[in-house]
């Protein structure tokens, strides 16, 4: 039984591709160039010139760094403690600027309110109060100053 089966299977050998298909397929395949093989040999690479060029650039950079900066470890850019100090300093400066700006804003606001005040008052009440506190009415006056003032006023 198996022999019969195998003989039947062998009859399938008579199946062959169409001649026109074979001819056309062969021509079209052989017209195509092969993919270039992956060349791991760096000495044959077209970019081999990049290797010494990059090496030279690296040497120049390292040379400049070591010549100008001396001890590389003293570079503040490489010292994390210095970086932290500079960072904190920056924050402090910003906080002081904010505080200053706030005082300026208050002063401006006071001046604007004094200007906009339509009542006949020559001086800001808060200023008068604060100046009054500084007055010492028992202090003897300077008669020369008094004479001058009288002259001006009257």
């Amino acid at each position: 039984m198996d022999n019969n089966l195998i003989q039947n299977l062998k009859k399938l050998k008579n199946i062959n591709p169409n001649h026109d298909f074979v001819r056309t397929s062969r021509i079209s395949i052989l017209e195509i160039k092969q993919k270039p093989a992956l060349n791991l040999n760096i000495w044959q690479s077209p970019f081999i010139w990049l290797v010494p060029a990059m090496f030279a650039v690296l040497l120049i950079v390292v040379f400049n760094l070591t010549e100008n900066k001396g001890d590389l470890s003293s570079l503040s850019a490489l010292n994390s403690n210095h970086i932290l100090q500079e960072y904190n300093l920056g924050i402090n400066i910003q906080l002081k600027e904010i505080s200053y700006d706030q005082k300026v804003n208050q002063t401006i606001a006071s001046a604007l309110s004094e200007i906009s005040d339509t009542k006949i008052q020559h001086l800001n009440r808060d200023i008068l109060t604060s100046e009054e506190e500084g007055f010492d009415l028992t202090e003897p006056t300077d008669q020369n100053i008094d004479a001058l003032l009288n002259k001006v006023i009257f």
Partner: protein
Amino acid sequence: MKDEDLFIKKAKRGDEKAFGVLYDEYIPRIYRFILLKVSRKQDAEDLTHQVFLNAWQNINRYEFRGFPFSSWLYRIAVNAVIDFYRTNKHEQRLETTPEEDLSETSELNDTVDHVLDITAVKTAVAKLEPDQQNVIIMKFVDDLSNKEVAQALEKTEGAIRVIQHRALKQLRAIFNDNKPKEA
């Protein structure tokens, strides 16, 4: 194939004539293998073309090391068929073998019976599982050794023998089912 190694070496260096010789040697087998798997002639031609194109473009990756060139081609063909079914996801359509695809050496008197026999065997083979089809076609149609089949299918020779045994058993069952019942 005589001097096959020489042709392979030349083809690896880009010699298209050398690859043409390999193409002529193996295209009947690869086409036959694929046609028995996919059944439709147009699909078989497309896939066969794809297999040899792939082989030509990647022949630099082939190294002998005890792995024959035919096994390498069959492996490309197996993968091409797998991808074909993955992308097409249609069931096999069984076509009768056109007379033009039969060898011209067939005797004219036997042509009709020949065609019927071949169609019956094709139908039976198409009903097998993919691995069984592969083993049956490679071993009994293309006369590959167990070792070559194992290398092409990336299995052990022992596994190939087991698959062959099951495939033949299955084919016997299919042929028995198709036999007309005696009255």
